[in-house]
């Protein structure tokens, strides 16, 4: 177990190095002098000179990369050109909102996706299976920002049940927070539910065809017990592992969902930064997202390893 843990931990080092190169490299795509572009529209000579010195633009590229990585390792992701705040602080301020949205969305996805996958696998070839597959196709083909707009039209404009936009902290008013978050969370969870449904269906079909399930049936156990106690327990492991890897989809989707519902989270931060030409913030958001993805990927692998006795031996 320890061997595997060390090996797996070491394996993320080169990935992190290349991620850092990729994100640093983004800056090189800027046409012209980065200092002038990063200084914003005013191009104040003092700011340009400050940025030139801070980014070490007169130094060779490898040295600039080393300075940048050095800063990142010390938690210095640069400063926002617009607000002069440290990028890490800005991200830390917005992250909890997106984490709440992502967790609610994932809970909704699990609630819809797993039962739909079970029903589809158990009733293979029936109308239920057909319906669940249609649901998955719908989830995968609907742009979530369009679904968001349609839900605002129905639940906010027509019925007046839920607020169309805005965010209230759960520590201020939990009810208002949930009313504001339920639509965005559903919109975001919809596509993940479709993916989970497909994973669940294929994992369940595989497990349901195995010998031990046939034995359980032969013992005279009820179908409910065979499906929920014997089959689902084994099918769940790959489903949860694969589901955890949907974090990337959640974060990508959050960018659009937060834009539609005007939620002041991580996704809105990156979009606002793009339009304010606040490139350090854009780089910071990509770096944090990629690091989170790599960490979650690692945790999912370790969890899979921990619960699968065959791998441990």
């Amino acid at each position, binding site marked *: 177990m320890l061997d595997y843990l060390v090996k797996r931990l070491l394996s993320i080092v080169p990935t992190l190095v290349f991620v850092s190169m990729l994100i640093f490299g*983004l800056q090189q795509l800027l046409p012209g002098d980065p200092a002038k572009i990063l200084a914003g529209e005013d191009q104040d000579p003092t700011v340009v000179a400050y940025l030139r010195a801070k980014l070490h633009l007169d130094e060779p590229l490898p040295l600039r990369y080393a300075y940048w990585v050095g800063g990142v390792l010390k938690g210095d992701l640069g400063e926002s050109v617009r607000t002069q705040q440290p990028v890490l602080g800005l991200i830390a301020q917005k992250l909890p909102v997106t984490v709440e949205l992502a967790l609610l969305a994932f809970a909704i996805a699990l609630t819809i996706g797993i039962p739909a996958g079970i029903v589809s696998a158990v009733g293979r070839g029936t109308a239920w299976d057909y319906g669940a597959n249609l649901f998955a196709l719908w989830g*995968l083909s609907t742009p979530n920002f369009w679904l968001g707009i349609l839900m605002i039209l129905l639940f906010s404009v027509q019925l007046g049940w839920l607020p169309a936009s805005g965010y209230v902290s759960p520590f201020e008013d939990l009810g208002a927070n949930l009313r504001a978050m339920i639509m965005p969370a559903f919109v975001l969870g919809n596509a993940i539910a479709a993916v989970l449904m497909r994973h669940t269906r294929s994992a369940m079909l595989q497990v349901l065809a195995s010998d031990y399930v046939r034995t359980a049936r032969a013992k005279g156990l009820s179908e409910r017990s065979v499906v929920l106690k014997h089959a689902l327990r084994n099918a769940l492991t790959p489903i949860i592992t694969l589901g955890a890897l949907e974090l990337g989809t959640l974060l990508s989707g959050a960018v659009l969902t937060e834009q539609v519902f005007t939620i002041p989270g991580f996704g809105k931060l990156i979009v606002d930064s793009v339009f304010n030409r606040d490139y350090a913030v854009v780089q910071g958001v990509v770096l944090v*997202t990629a690091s989170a993805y790599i960490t979650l990927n690692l945790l999912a692998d370790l969890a899979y390893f921990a619960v699968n006795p065959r791998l441990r031996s």
Partner: protein
Amino acid sequence: MSAMLSTQPPSPAADAGPWRRAARRLRRRRGALIGGAVVLLFIALALFAPWIAPQDPIATSWGAIRKAPSAAHWFGTDEIGRDVLSRVVWGTRASLLAGLVSVAISLALGVPIGLAAGFLGGVVDGLISRITDAFLACPFLILAIALAAFLGPSLTNAMIAIGVSATPIFVRLTRAQVLNILVEDFVEAARAVGNPPLRIALRHVLPNITAPLVVQATLAIASAVIAEASLSFLGLGQQPPAPSWGSMLNTAKNFIDNAPWMAVWPGLAIFALVLSFNLLGDGLRDALDPRQR
């Protein structure tokens, strides 16, 4: 050997090539056929937009601002009096172009890199695989947004951003397929008769990994269409006043309470096109690679 000894004439199914057999399987899948037909319909809309669109998609009319659907404007008009139907028809061009060009970029970059990784192995494979992992660690749309932000907002840059962001999927797929094919006897035979490595890669390996690449490309077009609409929705794709479904939805969200038709049609168009590519992709997967069914 058994075929040589058999006295029976070969059946038509066994006689047909793998592509013909796949086409026959595809024809039996109703979903894929409907998907393919709708894709063809959209291609026709894009090609013949000047003749199909009833009006100029960028012509404003201050006397027809936010008019509900009527005989004069089937899909209604937008906030500056432009005909929504004409804009949806012309918007097909941006979406299809983005879908096809982005995936062409991903294929053009991903397949040779994946071939090199699988074929050369060793240090080259290790390096390519780690770089691919790094790209895959950045969520697709966030990487595309970052690339589009640094390159500057335009449809061309959006296509480059989407194409580059989707490349790692093709690198991985090609590499995995190459590794599967390299252990086959016919590759060993090609080596044994003295074919140079490049010839083996292009003449013997590449044709045998085309099927999964075609399937992945079809499904990737669906993702690329959504990604272009997403970037345009955020203002990073097609720039106004040129019509694009994503940017139409971005404007529509501000008028959702008094002009909901502005949001319905462009969204429905994205949904129909993406669904069709997904249906076609699923059908192609079943037809070209029945083992994955």
